């Protein structure tokens, strides 16, 4: 193919450098800027698609140039199925979101900034997944964090958005520090950042060191992927425009952690602690995220907590895989792709609703079915796909995750995952009931609601099609990734998958009873029987409260230190020193300097006095001088004669 020599570089350099020229393009005109941005997204997709043929069936290609020879740092790309898969997902979702934003963001201010950050976001995420060394990965990792900050705080006039941006930035920074520590520890042991060296030589590192490195890098990944315990930033990031949320959830930000875990799985799967911890974090997060999604009344909160939960599924699957060739690794990546489709679609659908209604409160919605039929259908697709109803992609991926977890035999993990799956259906169903079904709320009666614009529907429809058909491509997808295990399509219809579907009914029934039938009074239930549970969920398991207390503790400590040390000691110290210096100076002046002055005056006056007396000798006449000289000479001569 003609693009082959260039596309590995252009696929990430093009969006990165095109982002710089967005302001220039918007000087030409908003129409030109839109065409420019979409064109860049399209070319990025073409380039990334052209990479597929290079890596089919598990080949891997590494291209590099030396960057810093003395430190063994190189700049390069690693093309293998994993990186190409992620690059394609990012560029595809990126293009869809860019097209969607043309319509969704059309009437906003500061679109130059928006498109600049979007292109930079896409470019740096592709750079992150396609880098061939950890240093390059970290640079793009930070760039992704920067872009997420810029985009979450896009509506910079809203204080919540600014606060959310700062929260996102700070919380992910905690993970970044851990990741950097891990990378530097690796470098200290291997003197190289590249994956090749890491994969070939990780056996040289002592096991305790490798364990520490793996835990640090796992921490970095789970913070980026919004897993417990630092998951709360993802809900705050909902202050961003919905298209940004779609990109952030579907492809870029949170998938960075998934990518890093999948990439380093080969190295760290030799450590049982890492595997166990990964599986447990994933499973617990899946459950916690799902329960949080059940409670929220924010329409964007549902997909936000859903993402936390679904990524928990993926990470649990990674933890269940004993090696990169095992089923769990494949299942996690498979679920990652289907999640990219259905969660992207979910955000696009919700974006249409918010675009029409201008509110995010689900309690003020209801009965949108008749007004927005296309969005309703899309939402149903999202819900079915997310819950894992058979023909949709998520059914296959979740089935694989379930079977991989069952193969580990850890009962509590299995229970957590199954209950998380049940709650997934429950919160999706609740979302549907609250938003589209039922009667129109008083808020909605006030104005007429239209269907979303055509462009938004088209871009959402593309993702919907992906949701529907992707599940049937599991076998080619597996070949593409080069995973080798005996794969039986009937695995999808085994006990695990069907039990999985069965669990959905368990989750669906209470929702049906409470929200659609209203045979159980939800408020009564909450206040009487589930008081503790409700309290916990309403406050998000008190994670933010704890972090707030910790931060407050630091603030109190610093103010205590300030009042005790800064004001009482450090600010007084200069005065004390200066005061004593003044005293010393005065003492010296009185005792030494005055004495010295007197002495000098004495000597000077004595000299002057004697000078006046001696002056008479000095006649100024030349003969006198000569006489003196002659006498001196004579004296010397006599002395000379006497001494010899």
């Amino acid at each position, binding site marked *: 193919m003609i693009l082959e020599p260039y596309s590995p570089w252009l696929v990430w350099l093009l969006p990165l450098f095109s982002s710089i020229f967005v302001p220039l393009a918007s000087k030409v005109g908003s129409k030109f800027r839109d065409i420019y941005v979409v064109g860049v997204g399209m070319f990025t997709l073409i380039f990334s698609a052209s990479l597929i043929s290079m890596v089919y069936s598990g080949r891997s290609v590494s291209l590099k140039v030396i960057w810093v020879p003395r430190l063994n740092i190189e700049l390069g790309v690693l093309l293998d199925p994993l990186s190409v898969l992620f690059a394609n997902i990012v560029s595809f979702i990126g293009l869809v979101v860019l097209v969607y934003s043309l319509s969704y963001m059309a009437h906003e201010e500061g679109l130059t900034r928006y498109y600049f950050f979007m292109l930079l976001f896409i470019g740096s995420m592709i750079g992150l997944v396609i880098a061939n060394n950890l240093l390059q990965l970290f640079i793009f990792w930070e760039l992704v964090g920067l872009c997420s900050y810029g985009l979450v705080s896009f509506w910079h006039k809203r204080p919540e958005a600014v606060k959310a941006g700062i929260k996102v930035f700070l919380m992910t920074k905690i993970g970044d520090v851990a990741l950097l520590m891990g990378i530097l520890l690796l470098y200290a042991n291997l003197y190289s950042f590249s994956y090749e060296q890491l994969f070939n030589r990780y056996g040289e590192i002592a096991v305790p060191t490798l364990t520490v490195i793996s835990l640090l890098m796992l921490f970095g990944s789970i913070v980026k992927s919004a897993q417990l315990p630092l998951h709360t930033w993802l809900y705050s990031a909902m202050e961003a425009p919905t298209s940004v949320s779609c990109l952030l959830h579907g492809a870029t930000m949170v998938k960075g952690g998934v990518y890093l875990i999948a990439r380093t799985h080969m190295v760290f799967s030799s450590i049982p602690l890492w595997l166990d911890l990964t599986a447990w974090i994933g499973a617990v997060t899946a459950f916690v995220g799902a329960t949080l999604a059940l409670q929220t009344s924010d329409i964007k909160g549902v997909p936000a907590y859903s993402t936390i939960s679904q990524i928990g599924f993926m990470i649990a699957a990674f933890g269940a895989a004993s090696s990169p060739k095992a089923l769990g690794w494949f299942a996690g990546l498979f679920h990652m792709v289907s999640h990219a489709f259905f969660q992207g679609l979910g955000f696009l659908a919700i974006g249409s609703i918010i675009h029409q209604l201008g509110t995010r409160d689900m309690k003020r919605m209801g009965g949108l079915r008749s007004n927005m039929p296309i969005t309703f259908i899309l939402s149903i697709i999202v819900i079915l796909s997310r819950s894992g109803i058979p023909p949709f992609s998520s059914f296959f991926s979740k089935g694989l995750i379930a079977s991989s977890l069952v193969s580990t035999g850890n009962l509590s993990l299995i229970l957590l995952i199954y209950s998380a799956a049940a709650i997934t259906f429950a919160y999706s169903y609740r979302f549907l009931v609250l938003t589209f079904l039922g009667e129109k709320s008083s808020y909605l009666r006030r104005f007429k609601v239209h269907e979303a614009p055509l462009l938004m529907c088209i871009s959402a429809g593309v993702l919907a099609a992906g949701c529907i058909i992707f599940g049937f491509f599991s076998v080619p997808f597996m070949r593409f990734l080069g995973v080798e295990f005996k794969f039986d399509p009937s695995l999808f219809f085994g006990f695990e998958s069907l039990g999985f579907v069965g669990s959905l009914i368990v989750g669906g029934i209470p929702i049906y009873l409470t929200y659609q039938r209203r045979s159980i009074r939800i408020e009564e239930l909450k206040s009487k029987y589930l008081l503790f549970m409700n309290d916990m969920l309403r406050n998000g398991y008190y994670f933010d409260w704890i972090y707030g207390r910790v931060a407050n503790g630091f603030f109190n400590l610093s103010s205590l230190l300030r009042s005790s040390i800064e004001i009482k000691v450090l600010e007084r110290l200069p005065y004390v020193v200066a005061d004593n210096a003044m005293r010393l100076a005065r003492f010296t002046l009185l005792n030494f300097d005055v004495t010295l002055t007197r002495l000098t005056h004495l000597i000077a006056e004595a000299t002057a006095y004697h000078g006046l007396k001696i002056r008479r000798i000095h006649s100024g006449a*030349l003969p006198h001088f*000569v006489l003196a000289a*002659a006498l001196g000479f004579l004296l010397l001569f006599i002395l000379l004669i006497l001494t010899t």
Partner: protein
Amino acid sequence: MEYIILSMTLLAIGVYGLLTKRNLLKTLMSIEIIAAAASMNFVVFSSLLGDRMGQVFFILALSVDTSITAVVVALLLVANRELKVSDIWDLSKLKE
């Protein structure tokens, strides 16, 4: 004949001139004689020891002497014009 004693005698003559004469011209002459007596040693010893370096230094000393004389003459002319002095004792008034 002792050349050292010769030059010392010449020096003594110069010193005598400085001591006794009050005329500025005589004073200058005495200084010249003293200088000649001093630089004479260079030539005498260079000639006796067969080393030409002494003559080189003699020429150096002579040129310095001569230039000093020129400067002194100029200074004395200025002093004479401004203060109307031709006597060395009068010059001691410059002290005040």
